[in-house]
C-alpha cells in the first residue's frame, strides 16, 4: 500500500508494508543514507529524524504511523550544510568516525528549535539518549552552545 508523506519538503509516496520502520524506508527505499542504523531499539539515537518537528527514533517509527506527516532527515536540515548546528559542528570539529552525528545533529536541532538558549544541563538532558562510541560528547555540547549564540 502507498503511504504519502512529506520528505524534506517534497511530497512522496512509498509502497511498502505499513510495519516497515521509517529508518529503512528512508535509507534503502528512498536512498537517503544519512540516517543511520545503530541498534534498532531506540537505545542509541543514530536513527533520529524529525516527524512534524519532533525528534523521533526512526527505527521504532513505522511507515503506517507517518501518513501525511512532515519528515525531515539530516539531508533536509539545510540545503547546503549551513544550518547553524552544522556550521558549529564543523567549527568545533565534532565528528570522529561520524556515524552517530546525523542523529546527534537532528536531536540537537529539536532542542534549539524549542529552546534557543539552553543551559549546559538542559543540553545534556536533551542529548543524553544519543550515544557516541568515539566520545565526542564534550565537543557536541560546545557546538550546541556555539550554534545557540551564533544562530
Amino acid at each position, binding site marked *: 500500500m502507498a503511504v504519502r508523506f512529506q520528505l524534506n519538503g517534497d511530497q512522496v509516496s512509498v509502497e511498502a508494508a505499513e510495519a516497515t520502520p521509517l529508518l529503512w524506508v528512508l535509507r534503502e527505499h528512498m536512498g537517503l543514507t544519512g540516517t543511520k542504523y545503530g541498534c534498532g531499539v531506540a537505545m542509541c539515537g543514530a536513527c533520529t529524524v524529525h516527524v512534524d518537528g519532533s525528534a523521533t527514533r526512526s527505527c521504532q517509527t513505522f511507515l503506517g504511523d507517518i501518513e501525511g506527516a512532515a519528515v525531515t532527515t539530516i539531508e533536509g536540515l539545510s540545503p547546503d550544510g549551513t544550518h547553524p548546528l552544522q556550521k558549529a559542528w564543523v567549527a568545533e570539529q565534532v565528528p570522529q*568516525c561520524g556515524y552517530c552525528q546525523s542523529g546527534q545533529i537532528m536531536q540537537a536541532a529539536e532542542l534549539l528549535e524549542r529552546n534557543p538558549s539552553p543551559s549546559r544541563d538542559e543540553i545534556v538532558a536533551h542529548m543524553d539518549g544519543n550515544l557516541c562510541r568515539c566520545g565526542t560528547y564534550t565537543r557536541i555540547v560546545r557546538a550546541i552552545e556555539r550554534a545557540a549564540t551564533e544562530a
Partner: protein
Amino acid sequence: MTTVPEKRSGVSRRNFLSGSLGLTFAFTVGGLLSDRPGEVLAAAGAEAREIGAWVTIAPDGRISIAAPAAEMGQGVLTSLPMILAEEMDADWSRVEAVFAPADPDVFGNPGLGGGMITVGSRAVSGYWTKVRLQGAAVRRFLMQTAAEQWGMPVDEVSTEPGYVIHPASGKSLSYGEIAAIADQPDSLPEVTEADLKKPADFRIIGRETPRLDVPSKVDGSARFGIDAKVPGMVYATVRHAPVVGAEPASVNSDEVEARDGVIRVVHMPNAVAVVGETVETVFAARETLQIDWQGGDTAGYNSEEALETFAKRASGEEGGLPYFKQGDTHSAKTAAAKTIKSDYMSDYVYHAQMEPMNITASVDETSKKAEIWVGTQSPSGIVGAATAALETEPQNIRLHQHYLGGGFGRRAAVETVPEVLFLAKEMKRPVKVIWTREEDVNAALMRPQTAHHLEAAIDESGLIIGWHHRIVAEAVTGYSSPDRLEQAKGLAPLTLEGATHQYSIPNQLVEYLRHVNGTRLQAWRAIGAGYNKFAIECFIDEIAHEQGIDPVELRLKLLKDEPRARAVVEATAEIADWGRKPEAGRAFGFAYGQVVGSYVAGVAEISVDEDTGVVRAHNFWNVVDPGIAVNPATIIAQLESNVVFGLSQALKERIVLVDGAVQQSNYHDYEILRMSETPEIHTKVLQTDYAPSGIGEVSLPMVAAAVSNAFFELKGRRLRHMPFTPDRVKEVLS
C-alpha cells in the same frame, strides 16, 4: 558517471567501474569516496595528471592525495596527506584526499610489515618516512619539469607552497601549470632522506588542521560500508552460532522462506543466513528462525567462573612463559625486606562500534572475480580473505573502501568476507549483508578477560628491587591469527601488549599463562595495554602508599632514566595541579605509561555515591608526548576519545558468557558511557622532535588505573576488577 582514464604509469591497477554498475558513489568536495586519485577531479571534468601513484594535479592546481589508511575517526584521511603535502610543498588549501586503492605493493604500511591495515596506532608512525619520501619525489619531479621548461639547472630552482620558483630570475610556475605541460611520468625521481624538510621548515605539519572528512559527516553525505547500494542487490542477515563452533543441525527454513519477501534461508558454516528483498524483511525473518545448534567448542563455558580459575592460576605456583625477564626476581624476593602482593582482574569487553558489521559483494559468473563494498581497517585482509574464499588471484578482487562507523580493532577482522561471497555465489546476485545489533553482540570478537598477580620486592632502604607480574588470559591471536601466535612461540603478542613498563627496577619477571577456551577474540582498542596498564599502574600506586611516598613522586624516582617520561608526568601533574587538597567527597588518582610508543599520563578526579555504588569522574587531565605532532587538532580529539572510551570500559562494560553464549544483546545491557557521565577533559600535547608515535589508543589505558587510584585516596579501598560496576563498588565499600 564519467569513465576514468585507464592508469598509464608503471604501477599495476585494476579496472574501474564499468558503466553497468551505475553511480555507486556520491562525490563530496573535501571528502573522498573514490578509491583512485584523480577520480574526483576527473568527474569534475579536469585533466588531472598522475604524478606517481599517490598524487594527481589538475591544471587549475587542485591536488588529490591518496590516503592509504582507513578513516575511522582518528583523522588519518587528513594527517597522512598532510605529511605528503608538506614534503611536496603543496598549497594545502588545494588538497583533497581519496582512499588509496587496495594495492599493498604501493600503499602498504612499512610499520606493519607492508600490509594495508590500520591497527595499533601505527598509521602516522608507520607511514611517516615513506609518505614523506613520496612527497619529496613529487616535488623533485615538479622542480625538474619546471627547470627543463625554463632551460635552467634544477639546483637553481626551489619551491614555495604550490609553486616552483627560480629565485635568481623571479620566474615561477604553479604546480597546476606544470601538470598541464608535463608528460605523465612512468616513475618519479629518486629521493633520499637528505631531500626531506627539516621540522623547523614545516608549514603544514604541526598546524591544527580541520579534517577533510568532517563536512561530509555533518550533512549525511559521508558513506559508510552500510550505505553501499549496488543495482540488483538483495539483502541478507545472519544468525551465527551463539556457541563458537556449533553447527545448525536443523532450521525451520520452509517456514521462514514462506514469509513475504524472503528469498532463501541459507546454511553456512556455523551460521544461518536469511536472504530477502529488503532489510526489514530479513531482519524480521531472522527473529523467526528456529535453529537447533549442535556442538561447539565453548559449550559449557561460564566466563565468571572461569575468571575465578584464572585468578587462582595467577596467584598460584604455576610458572608461565616468560615475556620479559631482567635480573633474578626469585632472589630479589628472597632478599626482600618486604613483599607486596596484589591481584587484579578485567572482564571481556565488546567493541560496540556504532555501525554494525556489514559487507556487500558481487561475484561474477566464473566465481573468480568479486567486488566488495565495505568499511575496513584491513584492505589487505579483505583481499586476502576474498582471494582465498574464491581460490583466485588478488587482482581479481576489487575493493571499494568506505568510512568506518567505528573500527577500534573490530574492522580489522574479515570473517564476513567468506560469508558474503558464499551468499553472492548462491544467489547469483550482489548481496548486502547487514548484521543486526543483536547479532553484532552475539558474534562479538572480544578483548579477553584477564587475571593478574603482582608481587614487588622491597629492600630495607625502601627501594623496589623486584617486580613479578603474572598474567592469565586467552591469547587473542589464538583465535584471530594462530600463525602469529606460533611465530611468537606462545607469547601472545596482542594479549601481552603493555605488560612491560619503564620503571627502574633491577629484577623483573613478566610471565604469561595461557588459557584456552575457543571464545571469539580480537584486538580491542589499546589491546593488552587496556588491562595490563590497569594492573601495573594500580600496583605502583599501592607500592607508593605502602612506602608512604606520593604516587607522582615515586613514579618520577622510578623514571629517573627516562626524560620524556618524566616530562609527561610533570606536565600532567602540573595541569592537574596535583597535590592540592581535593573538594570534600572527591579525590585524584594518577597513572603513567608508554603506550603505542608515546608517553602519556592521566589524572582522574572522582566522587562516589555510596548508596548506588556509582563512581563519577568530574575531570580528567591528559598529557601526551607523541613526538612530532602532525595534526595537533586530531591528537587532542583522540585524547578526548580515549578518555571517554577508557572511562566506559573502567566503569560499565562487560560481556558475560554462560554455557558458551554471550548474554548481552544491545545497548541496554551492554552500556557504554553517555554524555551525562563524561568528565571535563583537559589535554595537553607535549610535542618533541622525535618521529611521530601512536595516538589512537594512547591514553585509554590510563583511565581505569587513575580512577581506581583516586578511589583508594577517597575510600581507602581498592577497585581491583574492571569494570567498577555499582555492585562491585558497593561490595568493596562494605
